[in-house]
Every structure is written in C-alpha cells, then in structure tokens.
C-alpha cells in the first residue's frame, strides 16, 4: 500500500469543508503552535518572549477555527464521526472546546502577567500547556476507547510536569511526584476497565460497544457478564473520577494545588476538570442511549429504537447510581474539608473538589432522564455547560488574585490577606464578588449556574441529590465568607502591610476584567443559555 492509497483510505473526506481534517483544525493549530514554539526557541534565541506571543497567536487562531461561524439560529449541524469513527464532532465538542480555548487565551495572558516562569522555562511551559489542551480537546470528542485513553494521558502527563515546575521547591517536586504516581495508577485502572468492557463487548468503538451491549442485554445477560461489565464500568469511572478529583480519588488535589504555582493550579482546576466532565458526558451519553449512527452489520438488534432504549434502562440506573453517589460524597466532603484550611490554595482545592461534585449532578440527572425525556436530558447537559462556562471565570479570577497577591507579598495564607480591603479595595471587591459567586448568591453568575443544575435535578426527580446540593450550598457559604471576613474585618498586623494594588494598574484591571463576566453573565444569562442549549442539542439522538 503506498502513501497515496493510505491517504485515500484514511481521509477520503479530508479536504474541504465537512472533511475530517476540517473539523479538526483547532487541534491541528494547537499542534502546529507547539512545533512553532519549540522551533522559535532554537531559531530565535534572541526573542525572549517568543513563546508567549506565538502561543497567544496560535490560541487565537485555534479559537477562530473553533468558532462555529456557520451555525444559524436554531439550526445545528448533526453530529458526525470523523477519522473513521475515532472522534465525534458535534455541537457539544464545538462549544466545550471553544470554552477550553477561550480559557487558554485568558490563562496565557495571566501567566505572562504574573511572570512566574523564567525566560528559559517559558517555552516549555507553554508547550506543555498546549499539549495538555490537545489532550483535553480529544477527551471531549472521544468516540473510541483508544482516544479516551490517549486523551486522558495526553491531558495528564503535561500536568504532572507543570505541577513540578517550580525551581528549588521540594514541595513542588513532591506534589508532582504524588500527582504522577496517583495519576499513573488511576490511568492503569481505567485502562484495565476499558479493556474489560472492550473484551466483553467485542469492540473498541464506543457506539459499537453500546450496540453490542444492547444485543447482550436483549438476549439476556448472564451474571458473570454483569459482574465483568459493572466492574469494567466502575474501573473506568475510577479514571474519570481521578481527573475530576472526585472523592475518594481526590487526595492528590490539595497537595498538588498547594505545591504547584497558583497558575498551574488554575489550569488543573478549570481546564482539566472541564475536559473530564466533557469525557464523562460523552461516556454517559454513549452508554445510556443508542446513537443510531454506527450500528455494525450482523448484530441482531431489538425490534426498534424504543425497545433498544428500554433495554439500556439497567445501564442507566447503574450510571445514575455511581455518578450521584460520587457527586454527593464529593460535594459534601469538599465543602466540609474546606473549613479547616488556612492556605488559600488548599481552600480553593477543596472548593474545586466541591464544585466537581456540583458539576457531576447534572450528568446524573441527564442519565436519569434520557430514557423518558430526551429534551430534559439535554437541558441537564446544558446546565453542566453553563456551570463550566461560569466556573471558568470565577475560578480563574480567584487564582489570578491569589497569584498577584503572592507576587506582591510572597504568601498564600488566608491570614495574610488581612487589611486588603483598606489597602487595595478594588482587588478585595473582586475577590469578594468571586467568593460570593462561588457560593451561588444572586445577583452573581454563580446563582443561575447552580439554579439550572438544581432545576435539572428536580426534573430528574433526584430528590436526595437535590437535598445534598442545597445543603452544601449552605455549608459552603461560611468558608467563602471567612476569606471575605479576613480581607475586610480582620485587623492588619502591625509589622506588615497588605499590598497596594489599585484597579487601574495592569494587574488590577486584569482581575477586574475577569470579575466583570462573573457579574455580567447573571444579567446576560440568556446568551449563555443559548450556547449551552446549542451544545447539548446534538447529544442523545
């Protein structure tokens, strides 16, 4: 077989709009940016900030390619598989990928402003960030277990290094090592689970696996098969839960957040989590609903689509049980553990864990709804997308303020924020807004985010989960308030002054820029809702 035939076989539909490569342009741009950054470091050693500008340009180009220019109001292109069924390109991919890329743009500027990276490390830092981003894009568009695995690995491996990229800091190295060891273990378990599923279901492509699953269930499943399948599913969930830092696979998160720089922590907290949730949605969507796209020939299926959907009822129940249990435990544990923290990054780590719990709730709701009410399930996924979009701004703003304060004071302890409200009121207000929004108080964007999630839970009649979620919102109020209290009320120590960062400075205005959406999205909620519904539009069909 020569090269031309190979090309013909692989990407017969490559060139032009509608081809596989066409839908893959953002990822290709990211890969090209990686190469460009590395080459620039060799070829143009004199240009010190080359990595930053090239990365930014590459990300903006990727955003441009990722933006769905051709969408009309209420008219989304149908989901389609690309690269011989390895990936799936639909509106969910497009929107979540857009969120990730947008986050990356903000994040890149943020790291450039904090300037934590030596000039020598900068290129490597951005390369790793971009590599991780490619992995995340693959995770959210995975349609084959190979891609699931490679995406997870590709998103994780650079993060391990990023967590350790802090010179002469044993804490950082220890955190990175811990992260890498746990991550490798979780990936191993996940791979084992995937291979069990693939072995029993006789395929590695997710929709085909679902088709086989329906067939097996239709013929009557044996206890042994149930055992292996549920074991496989459980092990698969271990890998996803690790990426989500869901309890009981959360223990790496506080240490890594504390050991790594605030910048890296922001990246892991937002991007990595969004991608993991995207993957979770993909897996839930594919295993709870026959997609009708790629049923292989020669598999005897139940008489019609409805019967097939009914056959998957047990699978959906299983998914709902696992995801809701994880969500409830994660949420509660994260919020309770956050109380004892004195380090701001550790507090945000537990806050991240708690929010992962909130964000898993709509996934459980979607899985519960999909059998009876597909539109409701889409609404639930839309709630998740809304939450991710708003959480992105809130958390990035929180970590940005932490990083800027660290640059100014060299400390990340909450106690050292005392007197901030007097010295730099603008920054303190931003922080307070973010904290209140993380709780979910109106009139801030956190409120509608949480509201849509709870509405989805009501829709799915998951009352217990709703109760846990509401209770947790109440719980979380106090530790977020404590930060605000320290900033505003606690007396300033005599020997040390809180830093003065006016909002008009470069740094201050960046924080303000990030805080504006936290307020504005409350009032512009309709727009968010539109995009979120667009994202969920092509799922479960």
């Amino acid at each position, binding site marked *: 077989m020569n090269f031309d035939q190979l090309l013909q076989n*692989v990407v017969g539909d490559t060139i032009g709009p509608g081809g596989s490569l066409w839908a893959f342009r953002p990822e290709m741009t990211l890969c090209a940016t*990686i190469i460009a950054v590395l080459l620039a470091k060799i070829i143009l050693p004199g240009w010190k900030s080359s990595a930053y500008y090239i990365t930014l340009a590459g990300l903006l180009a990727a955003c441009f390619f990722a933006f769905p220019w051709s969408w009309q109001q209420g008219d989304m292109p149908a989901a389609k598989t690309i690269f*011989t069924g*390895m990936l799936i390109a639909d509106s969910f991919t497009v929107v979540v990928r857009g969120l990730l890329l947008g986050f990356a743009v903000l994040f890149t500027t943020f790291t450039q402003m904090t300037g934590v990276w030596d000039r020598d490390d900068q290129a490597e830092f951005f390369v790793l960030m971009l*590599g991780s981003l*490619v992995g995340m894009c*693959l995770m959210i568009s995975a349609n084959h277990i190979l891609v699931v695995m490679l995406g997870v690995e590709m998103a994780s491996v650079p993060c391990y290094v990023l967590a350790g*990229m802090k010179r*002469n800091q044993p804490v950082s190295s220890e955190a990175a090592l811990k992260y890498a060891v746990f991550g490798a273990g979780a990936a191993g378990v996940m791979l084992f689970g995937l291979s069990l599923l693939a072995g029993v279901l006789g395929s590695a492509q997710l929709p085909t696996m679902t088709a086989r699953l329906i067939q097996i269930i239709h013929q009557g499943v*044996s206890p042994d098969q149930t055992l292996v399948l549920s074991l496989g599913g459980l092990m698969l969930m271990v890998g996803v839960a690790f990426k989500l830092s869901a309890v009981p696979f959360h223990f790496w998160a506080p240490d890594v957040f504390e050991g790594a720089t605030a910048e890296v922590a922001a990246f892991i907290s937002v991007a990595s989590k969004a991608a993991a949730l995207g993957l979770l949605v993909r897996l839930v969507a594919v295993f709870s609903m026959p997609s009708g796209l790629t049923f292989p020939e020669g598999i005897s299926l139940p008489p019609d689509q409805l019967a097939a959907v009914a056959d998957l009822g047990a699978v959906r129940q299983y998914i709902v049980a696992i995801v809701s249990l994880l969500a409830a435990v994660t949420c509660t544990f994260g919020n309770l553990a956050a109380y004892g923290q004195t380090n701001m990054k550790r507090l945000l780590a537990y806050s991240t864990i708690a929010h992962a719990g909130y964000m898993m709730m709509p996934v459980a709701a979607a899985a519960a709804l999909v059998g009876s009410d597909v539109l409701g399930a889409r609404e639930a996924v839309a709630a998740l997308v809304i939450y991710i979009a708003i959480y992105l701004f809130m958390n990035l703003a929180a970590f940005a303020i932490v990083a800027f304060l660290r640059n100014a004071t060299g400390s990340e302890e909450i106690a050292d924020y005392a007197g901030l409200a007097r010295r730099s009121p603008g920054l303190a207000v931003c922080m307070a807004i973010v904290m209140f929004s993380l709780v979910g108080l109106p009139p801030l964007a956190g409120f509608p985010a949480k509201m849509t999630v709870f509405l989805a839970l009501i829709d799915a009649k998951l009352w217990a989960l709703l109760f846990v979620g509401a209770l947790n919102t109440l719980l979380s109020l106090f530790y977020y308030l404590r930060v605000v209290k320290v900033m505003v009320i606690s007396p300033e120590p005599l020997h040390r002054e809180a830093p003065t960062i006016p909002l008009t400075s470069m740094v201050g205005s960046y924080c303000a820029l990030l805080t504006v959406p936290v307020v504005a999205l409350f009032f512009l909620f309709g727009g968010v809702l539109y995009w979120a519904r667009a994202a969920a539009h092509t799922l479960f069909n």
Partner: protein
Amino acid sequence: MTNHQHILTLAVLLGAVGLWLMLPRGGARGRAVGTVLGIVALGLWFSQFHGLGQWTADGMFFVLAAIAVVAAVGAVTSRNPVYCAIWFGLSLLGTAGLLLLAGAQFIAVATVLVYAGAILVMFLFVLMVAQPEGKASCDQMSWEAGVSAAAGIAMVGVLSVAIGGILAPSCPAMPPIAPPTQEELAAGVLDPHQVARLGDELFGRRLIAVEVAGTLLLAALVGAAVIVNQFSGRRHDGQQKTV
C-alpha cells in the same frame, strides 16, 4: 454452586492468604507457608482450565502461564528492588510467550522490546544508580499488604470465572465465541503478512490514534527535558552556594 466454583473459590482464598503471607510486611514471617499455599492455589486454578486438546499447545500454555504468574508474584513480594525488576521482566517474557502462542507475534515481540528491553533496563539503571546498596527501609515493606492481596486475587478470580471461560459449559449465555475455522486461522494467525496487515490497520483506520500518541510522546519529551533542566539548574545553584 458447581464443583468448579467450589474449587475456584478455594483457589482464590488460598491464593489471597498465600499472597498476603508472601508480601513483605516488616519483620513478619510466613513466606514459606505462603509460597506453598500459592503453589497449591495455582495448581487448583490450572486444574480447572479447559485444555486445547493438543498436548504440546497445552504444555506450552501451562508452562508460560506459570512463568508469568509466578514471576508476577515474585515481582510484588521481593524485598530487593532489583529482584522485583528482574521478576517483572520474567513475567513479561512469560506474557510475551503467551501472546506468541496465541498468534499475536507483533505484540509479543513488541512487549519484550519495549518493556523488557527499554523500560526495565531504565528501571534497573535508575535503581542501581539511585541506591547502590539496594536496601532502603521503604523497600522492605509492602503498604496495605492485606488489602492489596485481597484486591489483586479477587480481580483474578472474577476475571477467570467470568471471561476466562472456566465455567463456560455452565453458563450458556456467554457470547458464543466459536473456535476459529481453518480459513479464519489462515487469514489471521497463520497469515504470512500479519505485520503488514497490522500496519495497514494501524496507519489506516487508527491513524489519528498513532498521530496523537506521537504528539503525546513529544509533550512527554518536553516534560522530561524540563525536569532534567530543573535538576541540573539546582545542582549549579548548589555549586555556586558552596563556593
């Protein structure tokens, strides 16, 4: 419960207890008893497999499987990290032999080449350079010996019951996996152009996975370079301080 299941349950229990006894738990004793129990469990296990009906193939299978399993147990129970690595290598060789027996030539050879040839040599290199004495106190202990023994053996038990086909006659609902016909054999295992077909598949339908793996390796390479730079930078700093 059939007779099979009784024997298997017994094998699982014996295996778990044996493994627990064999794992290094501080100064605890009982390795010899554990070894005996493990061997008995392995024997019970093997007695429940269906043979392939051909003594050479069966013999090869049992020998290779025994090598793989025993070496794997050795890898987790040795107190000396170098021995752990060697046992692991042996286990890989046994696994590669099983793959070869199953007709997966390329995977078999690739296993040896990649794991035994590159990764394990790297392990050994690091172990030897990092601790020439090979006796750190943390290597003498197994964390959570009981839990890991139970979990590992339970996994093996579940797998061998459910997909190992040990109980196949008693559970008709297993997906019907017919033995391959002569034509299928000729087209698959015995195909002289096996590797070429594997390549076609890999670089045809799975091309994107190969490319992604390449990108992953690039990112990992950059990461490795970062870590190395970091440590060499640290060393230079240290030198300057001492001056």
